[in-house]
């Protein structure tokens, strides 16, 4: 795999990257949910369309517009989107009216927008993009599947680009249900507790992040070189798979300038991430991100976009690192998980 990240668009609980002050302050909160810091969308979305868009759609569309703007591209060649849950709010609206009104007197708007490919369709509509357009809904591998699709597309169309992103929205229902299921922790917590004090459940989050991917290696861009996915309930097996991935990518610890980990404050994964830091990536610079984004199925899109941003700006805010920040970036490894779905990424700064 060889995919170059030409630009990024991030809409997250830690702000959006259209602003100068993005990542200028350390996160500070005491909460059970990290909701998106929504921006003024009118710069990106016409008011008529904006009025009808639910949060998943507007944050997805805005992140894609920021990404295109940063690359100076009006229209991408193709679009590839991952979402674990899709447009939950519209789904719930239609569902709750259908249940309470006994299938009568319903209106179509929320049904139309509840389709999983709504964001991909809206991006195509707003940019007039007639190209390839796919949406993947594969739990904690949704964004990863979208990246694999981007790679397949660019292999067939090497001169083109593909807007590739991941997004999920948190709703009152998903928060309540995922707390009951033990995915999210019940009470409020702060950023330190997510990184150092494991409890049952992780911090709930949401967001949308897009990358413009192409085959041409522009200097100073981050390249996605390797991606491996697996599903397991056994964290010991997961550790073995990470080692297999490093061998497959022919990466020695000394080659790795930075390791980013999806540490999420959930006790179930504490020993996995602890062993990665203590044994596999001993003495490596370690970065974290879920104290900014919160946990959700496509948070890896935020992580990759964040890494691309660090590479592009060369500025390394201290609150991203467990100890010292690296002086320069070269080979980077990102290990993430969302509810038994793991992904291992090999990135490289050109």
């Amino acid at each position, binding site marked *: 795999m060889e995919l170059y990240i030409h630009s990024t668009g991030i809409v997250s609980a830690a702000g959006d990257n259209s602003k100068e002050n993005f990542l200028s302050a350390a996160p500070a909160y005491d909460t059970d949910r990290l909701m998106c810091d929504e921006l003024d969308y009118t710069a990106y979305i016409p008011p008529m369309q904006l009025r009808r868009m639910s949060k998943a759609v507007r944050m997805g569309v805005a992140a894609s517009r920021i990404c295109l703007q940063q690359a100076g591209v009006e229209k991408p060649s193709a679009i590839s989107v991952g979402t674990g849950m899709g447009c939950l709010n519209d789904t719930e609206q*239609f569902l709750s009216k259908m249940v309470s009104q006994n*299938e009568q007197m319903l209106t179509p708007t929320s049904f139309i927008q509840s389709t999983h490919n709504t964001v991909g369709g809206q991006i195509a509509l707003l940019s007039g993009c007639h190209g390839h357009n796919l949406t993947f809904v594969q739990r904690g591998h949704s964004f990863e599947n979208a990246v694999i699709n981007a790679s397949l597309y660019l292999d067939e169309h090497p001169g083109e680009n593909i807007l590739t992103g991941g997004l999920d929205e948190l709703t009152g229902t998903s928060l309540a249900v995922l707390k009951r299921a033990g995915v999210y922790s019940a009470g409020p917590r702060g950023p330190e507790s997510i990184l150092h004090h494991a409890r049952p459940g992780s911090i709930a989050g949401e967001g949308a992040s897009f990358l413009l991917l192409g085959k041409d290696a522009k200097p100073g861009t981050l390249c996605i070189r390797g991606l491996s996915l697996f599903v397991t309930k056994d964290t010991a097996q997961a550790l073995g798979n990470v080692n297999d991935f490093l061998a497959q990518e022919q990466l020695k610890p000394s080659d790795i300038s930075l390791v980013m980990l999806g540490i999420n404050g959930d006790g179930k994964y504490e020993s996995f991430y602890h062993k990665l830091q203590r044994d596999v990536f001993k003495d490596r610079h370690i970065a974290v991100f879920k104290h900014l984004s919160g946990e959700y199925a496509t948070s890896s899109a935020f992580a990759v976009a964040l890494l691309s941003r660090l590479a592009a700006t060369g500025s390394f805010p201290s609150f991203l690192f467990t100890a010292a920040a690296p002086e320069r970036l070269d080979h980077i490894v990102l290990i993430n998980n969302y509810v038994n779905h793991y992904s291992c990424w090999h990135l490289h700064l050109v």
Partner: protein
Amino acid sequence: MNPRAYVVNTGLVTAIGNNTAECMDALIAGRSGIGKAKHLQTHWRNELPVGEVDASNAELAAMSGTDAAWPRTALLSAIASKEAWQPYAGKTEGLRTGFFSANSVGGMDLTEDFYAGFVQNNATGNLANVTSHECGAVTELVSDHLGIYDFVTTISTACSSSANSIMMAAQMIGNDMLDIAIAGGADCLSKFTLNGFHTLMILDKEPCHPFDQNRRGLNLGEGAGYLVLMNEKAMQQCGAKAICIVSGYANTNDAFHQTASSPQGTGNKMAMQQALQKAGLQPSDIDYINLHGTGTANNDSSEGLAIAAIFGEHVPMASSTKAYTGHTLGASGGIEAVFGTLAIRDGIVFPNIRWQTQMEEIAWKPVTELQRGCDIKHVLSNSFGFGGNCSSLILSKS
């Protein structure tokens, strides 16, 4: 040259049959599966006919050796994917196998039950009913059941979903990332989709008439359809014989409206043209088009005009099979790719049943009688959907 993706087997469950052979019998006999819902518990049961699979969840679970507590989409998926996969199970040691299963409703049927309790009090509602809500969760129930782990994905692009599964599977075999793929999709009827389409006022209150001047809309259906794709190495190891190959595919976007097609079918036309280009074929090489042909005023007009623009006065034999099965949404591309495979295998073109009146805006008409003894070398299969998604596949005799 890249490895080719050979179609070696199929699996189906639809309103016209519980396996490929039963569906084929019904297609030949002209027997439609559209009627009153027996299993879907809806207010609209007497008013909106559907293409329902004739089995309860318990019966589907017994047929597939799975669990009746699964979402109905997963049960349908298990039946059809097992039919397709069964001959090769246990013979694939050392081969890389992927499961590409599209759907659009996920576990919505169970979520509907959960939600009724949850809206009263968010501490109630059986959690087990919502753990498989996600489309990807439905796919994983089935991939775990089949024991396929090398690559598992769920595409959800509304009505074009499972055509895209087949496209991506062919690409991954072509790039030597996999040796085998089970590719297609499933969707069950749900109150959510039935009511959603009803609010759009595009459901026919009678059995639908695709590509007819007096068409009134679509009937929703349910089912699952899968192809087993293999490279040559896998065919040799499994002792599988090729029926046809996936020779062309394209995915485009109409970029016109969230739910409606552009009047001239811009995206439809681009998808068909690019699929022909990918396959290295001319329009005149196509012997049969399995139309998207939902029966709505908008779809059939846009698709009909796009076909006229590409094929001119020489439109090949074409038919919509949705008058048999209903519109099975995320499953339709997979189900219809199986029908296309059978057309090549048996030299048959299925009739566009219930057709009566020529559409005014186009000069060509669909095939209305069963055609046998045809030499079908290349089939074009169209799937178009919400979000402007347009996909075309080409299957070619190998």
